[in-house]
């Protein structure tokens, strides 16, 4: 967590990422960002504009939460990133290489899970992974068995390796899907709704798995319509709404979008409110034993001092973090599916 979790800005982050993944044979120095798209647009044959002029920038080493309501274009974007869907306009670069042009070269370094697990129901978990592994032209066939078992072990499915996929629980299916991206060492892992349909236990398991992957310096892009998921594991977020990116940046930058408030616990509500108004704070509200106001650029320390000088007994002072959920609903509009 520590490596990936540091909340530095995108630019500052490219540095440590460079050291961690000695990566591509490109020019020395700072490696290309994990993902960049420019002007990425997809209009389906029916005329529906699924993705509109998207400019993603996912720095190396980040855990990027790709957020948006269902139907906002996340999965279409991810399919374009992986060369499954051809863009109508615009370009995609993964780890510096263009997709789909250089897909054969770059995709072996990218693990992915697209739109839920999909396997042959009549094959065992192990046989399913063997099938995926056999399709990889860069994989050394002599080590296939060890590689497959290691991937199964990592998601805790080794004991169920011989079971048919059909008999797997939803959580096991999801974990098997994630294990396909662990067959090879990766520089980037793209997970589309990895906790979709999982129970809280399964969600926690997947989340800790993502953290573990990220700790190794791998860049992770995880799409979700669940806010809690993103808030807990991500360093960066991109928010989509009807095919467009409405926000992109670090979690802190996102929070700073929201208006912060200052909350003062005091017995002298009237005086406190007066002082705050005098200091130029807006939206002053008092309730019970609290007075709160919108904080703009005033330092909380100064406000506290002014209150004390004005003779207000300050029992407590807080500047709570803005509620991310409210921010998201604000960004993505009414349709945001908070419950999943």
């Amino acid at each position, binding site marked *: 967590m520590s490596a990936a979790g540091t909340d530095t800005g995108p630019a500052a982050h490219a540095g440590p990422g460079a050291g*961690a*993944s*000695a*990566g591509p044979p490109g020019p020395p120095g700072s490696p290309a960002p994990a993902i960049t798209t420019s002007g990425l647009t997809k209009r389906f044959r029916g005329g529906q504009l699924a993705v509109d002029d998207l400019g993603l920038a996912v720095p190396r080493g980040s855990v990027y939460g790709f957020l948006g309501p269902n139907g906002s274009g996340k999965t279409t974007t991810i*399919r374009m990133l*992986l*060369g*499954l*869907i*051809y863009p109508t306009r615009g370009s995609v670069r993964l780890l510096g290489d263009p997709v789909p042009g250089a*897909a*054969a070269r770059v*995709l*072996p*370094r*990218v693990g*992915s899970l*697209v*739109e*839920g697990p*999909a*396997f*042959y*129901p*009549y094959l065992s978990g192990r046989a399913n992974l*063997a*099938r*995926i592994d*056999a*399709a*990889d*032209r*860069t*994989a*050394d*066939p002599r*080590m296939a068995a*060890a*590689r497959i078992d*290691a*991937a199964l*072990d*990592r998601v805790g499915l080794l004991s169920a390796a011989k079971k048919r996929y059909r008999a797997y629980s939803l959580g096991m299916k999801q974990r098997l*899907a994630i294990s*396909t991206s*662990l*067959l*090879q*060492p*990766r*520089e980037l892992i793209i997970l589309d709704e990895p906790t979709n349909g999982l129970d809280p236990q399964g969600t926690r398991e997947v989340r800790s798995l993502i953290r573990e*992957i990220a*700790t*190794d*310096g*791998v860049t992770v892009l995880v799409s979700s319509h669940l806010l809690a998921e993103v808030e807990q594991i991500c360093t960066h977020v991109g928010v989509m709404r009807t095919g467009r990116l409405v926000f992109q940046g670090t979690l802190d930058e996102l929070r700073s979008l929201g208006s912060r408030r200052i909350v003062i616990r005091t017995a002298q509500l009237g005086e406190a409110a007066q002082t705050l108004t005098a200091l130029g704070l807006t939206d002053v509200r008092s309730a019970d034993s609290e007075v709160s106001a919108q904080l703009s650029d005033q330092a909380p320390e100064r406000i506290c001092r002014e209150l004390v000088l004005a003779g207000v007994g300050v029992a407590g002072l807080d500047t709570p973090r803005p509620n991310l959920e409210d921010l998201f609903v604000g960004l993505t509009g009414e349709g945001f599916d908070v419950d999943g």
Partner: protein
Amino acid sequence: MSTAEATAVPPAGAADQPARSPGAIPAWLRLLRSELRLVFRRLRNLALLAVLAALPVLLGIALRLAAPRGGDGDAGSSFISQLAGNGVFLAFIAITLMIALVLPLAIAVVSGDSVAGEAGLGTLRYLLTVPAGRTRLLAAKYVAIVVFGLSACCVVVAAALATGAALFPVGPVTLLSGNTVPLGQGLLRVLFVTLYVAGAMAALGAIGLAVSTFTEHPIGAIATVLVLAVVSEIADNIPQFAVVHPYLPSHWWLFFDSLLRTPIATTDLLHGLLSFGAYAVVFCAIAWARFTSTDVTA
């Protein structure tokens, strides 16, 4: 790839050079093996092969029961009258009857399912993001279809020969043209017939592969291929369509009987093989053009 295997260990060893990866051809053969395993371990396909093996046996028993006692009865078709004298002919009878519907059905199932089945299951997106490579995957799929078609023909012939040997006398083979060739040469001709029919099925398989790239519903693809085969056979029997007969995919299927005459009418056989080759090339090209340019949304 040096540390690639130790996936349980942090994959931070991303500093791998893609140097130790296998060559393109061994890697493709590995994909092909995986594809063949998928086709030949699938219960449904094994059941198809079992049916293909059982029908010649039933046919042999039925013909044995119906065979004229004396052996010189001149009733029935020339094939069937030959059978009374030689069990090897059961192979030709079985192929002739089964090429009308059962063999095309088996090939339709496997070829129609090839891409559409993966798309329907969603496994296609997993294979393509590996990345398996669209052309590479399609090539493996087509070779697997051809191998399955050949296996289907071999199963029919082998079951027919075994049944024929058990129920009828076996010896020098009297051909349709009246000459008699030694048993060894007779069996060689059986082999050629098997390969010819496998070629016909490979052409049908290419049509199936192409159809399969247009849908996510394997049943639809399978039905389409079968309907195409049957329509072609019906059209081939309508005299008014005589102009197009040589261009129908099924027109040359039965021309393997040239191999049962002396001298062998090679012109017809070559025409047949040319037709199969043309169908295979054209429909593989259609499959490729479609598969490499289409969005995978399944």
